[in-house]
């Protein structure tokens, strides 16, 4: 008894020892900057020879970002479109791709290697260059009869999202890597006998997908939605983060403005996370 207590007491100390680098880093590189940025966002920050000088300006930085700045007027809607169209499509496509990769046919390994290649090569400047040089959209997409039909005969509010998906098909696929990987490994862990039993009972592939596959991967849909939101928000696709960096060294805007913009951006991100939690994350039953 005595010995056991001693052991567990020591263990507690050891656990903290292992976690301590993180704790230290968390305070220095996350908590402190986190609160500093809050302070900056309500101040006008100027750099003088003597050092940094901050003056309280109430919420002016926030109103400047939201209502005055032309860059953010452009960037905010763009970011919202990404969150509400691009992110769901990435998740849907990663489910489809993992279904395709989950089979046991020859050549699966090769296709898997191809589908995961973007995970390794994707980077901000590369995506930017692909976009500006038109290598991120399929050439001659506009000539496809399907594309023409959609753009010509459907009302705008219906056709715009569909066309957005067509135009961004490559980038959507390029952002699926890690998510596909997670879905695939979740699918491969489910017991194959469930599928066999349902087949004996006469379930079709379609029914199997909705009744077995989707419920087993559901927690991972939520996880992947979060991952995608974060990944897209922090990538070069999101114009806001570039504007923030530029605002930092802009004499008229400065750190105060940039911090306020960061906070608005963070709140939008949190909102997206919250929405996906309400849609996907709540415990079933």
């Amino acid at each position: 008894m005595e010995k056991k207590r001693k052991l567990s007491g020591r263990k507690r100390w050891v656990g903290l020892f292992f976690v301590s680098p993180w704790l230290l880093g968390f305070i220095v590189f996350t908590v402190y900057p986190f609160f500093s940025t809050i302070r900056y966002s309500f101040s006008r920050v100027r750099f003088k020879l003597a050092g940094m000088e901050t003056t309280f300006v109430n919420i002016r930085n926030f109103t400047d970002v939201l209502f005055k700045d032309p860059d953010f007027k452009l960037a905010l809607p763009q970011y919202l479109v990404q969150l509400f169209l691009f992110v769901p499509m990435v998740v849907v496509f990663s489910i489809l791709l993992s279904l395709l990769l989950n089979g046991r046919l020859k050549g699966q390994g090769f296709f898997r290697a191809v589908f995961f290649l973007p995970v390794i090569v994707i980077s901000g400047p590369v995506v930017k260059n692909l976009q500006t040089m038109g290598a991120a959209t399929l050439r001659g997409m506009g000539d496809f009869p399907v594309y023409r039909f959609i753009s010509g005969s459907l009302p705008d509010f219906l056709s715009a999202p569909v066309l957005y998906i067509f135009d961004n098909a490559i980038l959507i696929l390029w952002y699926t890597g890690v998510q596909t990987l997670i879905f695939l490994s979740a699918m491969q862990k489910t017991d194959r006998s469930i599928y066999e039993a349902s087949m004996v009972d006469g379930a079709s592939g379609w029914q199997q997908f909705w009744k077995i596959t989707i419920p087993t991967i559901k927690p991972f849909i939520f996880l992947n939605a979060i991952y995608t939101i974060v990944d897209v928000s922090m990538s070069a696709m999101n114009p806001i983060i570039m504007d923030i960096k530029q605002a930092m060294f802009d004499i008229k805007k400065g750190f105060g403005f940039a911090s306020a913009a960061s906070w608005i951006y963070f709140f939008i991100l949190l909102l997206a996370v919250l929405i996906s939690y309400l849609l996907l994350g709540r415990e079933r039953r």
Partner: protein
Amino acid sequence: MKIKKIYRAISRLFFYITMIAVGFIFLYPLIIMFAESSKDVHDLVNPLVRWLPTHIYTANFTRAWNVLGGFDTLLISSGYMLLVAVCQTVSSAFIGYGFAKFDFKLNKPLFLLMICTFILPDQVTFMPKYLMFKSFGMLKTIMPFLLPALFGQGIKNAIFILIYYQFFRMIPKALDEAAEIDGAGFFRIFAGIHLPLAVPATVVVFIFSFVWHWNESYLADLYFEDAIRTFPLALTKFTEYFQKLYPVEDAGNPLLRMNEGVRMAGTLLCIIPLVILYLFVEPKLVESLDRAGITGE
């Protein structure tokens, strides 16, 4: 019976067609880039030349390679990023082990906070960090990446700690107890027993850490201030570097001017080292991902 066989053959054919089509879309940007960058000026403006250039032309690649900084950039940035990746991997293993194996008082809340840092964007913290590194004279060095990585606050660090956490949870407690009874110290149990078992997690974490640091350009641009050049950074300033290296005065010859082809070649060269790396590590990576149990058991 026969109908079933035919049905199966057709569905298989359909499957392969789908796979090849999807694979083509995935590789499309690479194919386009390759096609564009092996064209000279005449081919670029010739509407008849789409995929295949009229002749083999490699000058775009050699010039783009020089603009990116060639082997110097490749070696220096790879070296630095390797160092950062090693630090991040070791610290993630260390921290993940602490969270996974010990019931200290604040374990759960701290772990939750750690997970939450995943959705915290860099933008919310990087301005004070920038000032901090500046006041310590650490700009233009690798330190702004190395230090956070060492203390578990690097790029996507929450994922890496989580991967180790999941892995160490799978190792039965009996193993620790046996080692403890044999008199092994806590550090030895970690370094001598758990770490060697965690090879799959280490492979995954190390490769992703390296690749994500290698591809980083947003913070690198801020911290390095041109003192350390990486491929993605050079790519963002491609036009500027190109004009410095090949000034306009000499460019009376249209062959020497900046064009799509050179830009594409630059983008492709930025990717190629990673593709080569991928060819080597892909089998190992896939195997490790299966065994690292990222989706739990």
